[in-house]
């Protein structure tokens, strides 16, 4: 399907702007509507994103790699037993299954400073692509700060608040969860990180959390995300809180040449 040289299609002569954003800009039009090509492009992306929601996570490989790097892991499940249940019952995705509880109880109740949890969320691809490279940066930093860490917990069918249960079990002050975000048309593999200070199940709310979202190839890169997370950890330790009262005040790391281009509308 090509719209080129089609007299019924009105192209937009500002295609050069596409270099700045993955957004669907300068699409052109047929009359005032989407062209056939743009319309089918969208349908294709929607089909891919719909399917991404339903691909089950495979933690085995992530476990293997983390173990190879010398980190212990623990694989847990929530009470959402399947994908349909997970989508319709967020409450069950915030509770550990009976077997997972038992599994946690069996691990030594070492008191810890920080817990790191990984959950599939709504995109297993996000975890598949980004969890291991990000953890390979994050975990050494946490160790370097002298934090005592329990095993990295990998949770299937988990919602953000599932990390609270893990933090409580290990009596950890600092709670981080890497989770697959809802798949977008243009980014089916976006990962988010939620950080909570003194997380407690049933007590911590969204207002107590800080979120770093859009970690993927067109969004935040691993270094930027790490910088933000470490800033939040440091500040949370000082202020003894997290959430809306803790502001991310990291400075911008966009390279200068992009900064300059930033003002093409304003130069």
């Amino acid at each position: 399907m090509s719209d080129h040289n089609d007299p019924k299609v009105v192209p937009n002569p500002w295609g050069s702007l596409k270099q700045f954003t993955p957004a669907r800009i300068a699409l052109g039009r047929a009359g005032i509507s989407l062209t056939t090509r743009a319309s089918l492009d969208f349908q294709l992306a929607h089909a891919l994103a719909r399917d991404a929601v339903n691909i089950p996570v495979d933690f085995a490989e992530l476990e293997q790699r983390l173990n190879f790097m010398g980190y212990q892991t623990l694989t847990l499940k929530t009470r959402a037993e399947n994908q349909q249940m997970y989508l319709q019952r967020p409450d069950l995705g915030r509770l550990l299954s009976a077997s997972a509880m038992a599994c946690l109880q069996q691990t030594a109740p070492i008191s810890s400073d920080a817990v790191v949890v990984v959950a599939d969320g709504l995109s297993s691809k996000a975890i598949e692509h980004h969890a291991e490279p990000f953890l390979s940066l994050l975990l050494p930093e946490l160790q370097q700060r002298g934090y005592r860490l329990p095993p990295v917990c990998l949770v299937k069918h988990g919602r953000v608040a599932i990390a609270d249960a893990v933090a409580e079990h290990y009596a950890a002050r600092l709670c981080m969860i890497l989770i697959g975000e809802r798949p977008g048309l243009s980014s089916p593999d976006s990962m988010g990180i939620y950080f909570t200070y003194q997380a407690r199940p049933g007590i911590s709310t969204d207002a107590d959390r800080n979120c770093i979202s859009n970690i993927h190839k067109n969004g935040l890169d691993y270094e930027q995300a790490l910088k933000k997370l470490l800033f939040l950890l440091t500040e949370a330790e000082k202020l003894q809180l997290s959430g809306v009262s803790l502001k991310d005040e990291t400075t911008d790391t966009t390279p200068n040449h992009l900064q300059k281009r930033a003002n093409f509308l304003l130069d």
Partner: protein
Amino acid sequence: MYKIHTTDLAYDFKTLRNLMAKASPSRSGDYLAGVGAVNNLERVAAQWVLADVPLKQFLNEALVPYEQDEVTRLIIDEHDSAAFAPVSHLTVGDFRNWLLSGHATTEALTAIAQGLTPEMVAAVSKIMRIQDLILVAKKCRVITRFRNTIGLENRLSTRLQPNHPADNPAGVAASLLDGLLYGCGDAVIGINPASDNLEATLRLLNMLHDVIERYQIPTQSCVLAHVTTTLKAVEQGAPVDLVFQSIAGTQKANDSFGINLNLLNEARLAALELNRGTLGNNCMYFETGQGSALSANAHEGLDQQTCEVRAYAVARKFKPLLVNTVVGFIGPEYLYDGKQIIRAGLEDHFCGKLLGLPMGCDVCYTNHAEADQDDMDMLLTQLAVAGGTFIMGVPGADDVMLNYQSTSFHDALYVRQVLGLRPAPEFEQWLQQHGIFNADNQLQQQSDVPALFKPSLQKLSG
């Protein structure tokens, strides 16, 4: 009270709160909360009982206790009984008849708005079909102003939403220009920042200010950061036009958002002090959505639609320029499919308008909901027929930061063309002046870049 006997069954709904929930049209969030009707018969039985409840009863029986919830206190304490007088003798069922009748003119509806509570409005919506929701909403007229005039008859405004996954200013500017060249952006140019970062917020605020100034665009800007971040930005002297905040219908849910009425008031006063509006001072932009309270486990046993409408009482107090129900954003656990999303969008629009709010709708869905573009076309068209105040304009309907599908610049042009709707007058004039629209309010035949923006684009290719 609240009882009905049919030939086979007897129902006793006990409380008004329970009756409201059981009478609510089917949606997944109410089942998740365990408050929805267990079958169709129970739902219709509840609707029969609800139709006989006097509107006055809602002033006597608070659905969330007055002592424990500041949203309830706001609703009761600021109720205008003089405005309520013309309909105060009606039951919910009679009220529906009145709304549909010729007595409910635009003037009459405007006059009673402050006398209606969210619960009264939610109740009547539960016994209204989609065509009723459309017919009555269409008669409501809510006009607000900042740098242009929003909500006039036969106008449909658009929020230009040029989000970028890393808040990259060039990326934002690219989508922004694309939108302007498609005639989008009269409601607001509003960016959701990827992170609630003060520096990013300041940078985006300054950039939007500079663009609006440089190109003399008769519109307003907003960076949709948390209200406390926006307050910090105001303290640092940033050019804040509209203050944004997500709001909900219970105190507990608002707590979970990190807000309360005092904080919103403080933010509004700070923005008013900047005095940046030229035609008016409606300086707040609120977003809502069914299911947000339950999502925070703060629904207080209410059904999600009633909870949603209570959020409009919060909005109304602060005289917003725009209120946006982001209807399909939250996901299938609250609104399962296209059918539920469509009805919810039209309910929210109707309820907001009846309460006197400048109600727009983010016609949208996520990739884990059972919905697609056809569903969005139906809601978009019906909302516009109902006189919806504004919709979103997202490049290609694909928000690359928030990861959901909304309406595109093309969608706005479609609905304007088929229904003969126009942008806000001041913005329309700007579009025509720069040759983006022709005299018939349509895009030019050929897609030339207007002289206004030529130099910026030439620099890029040069």
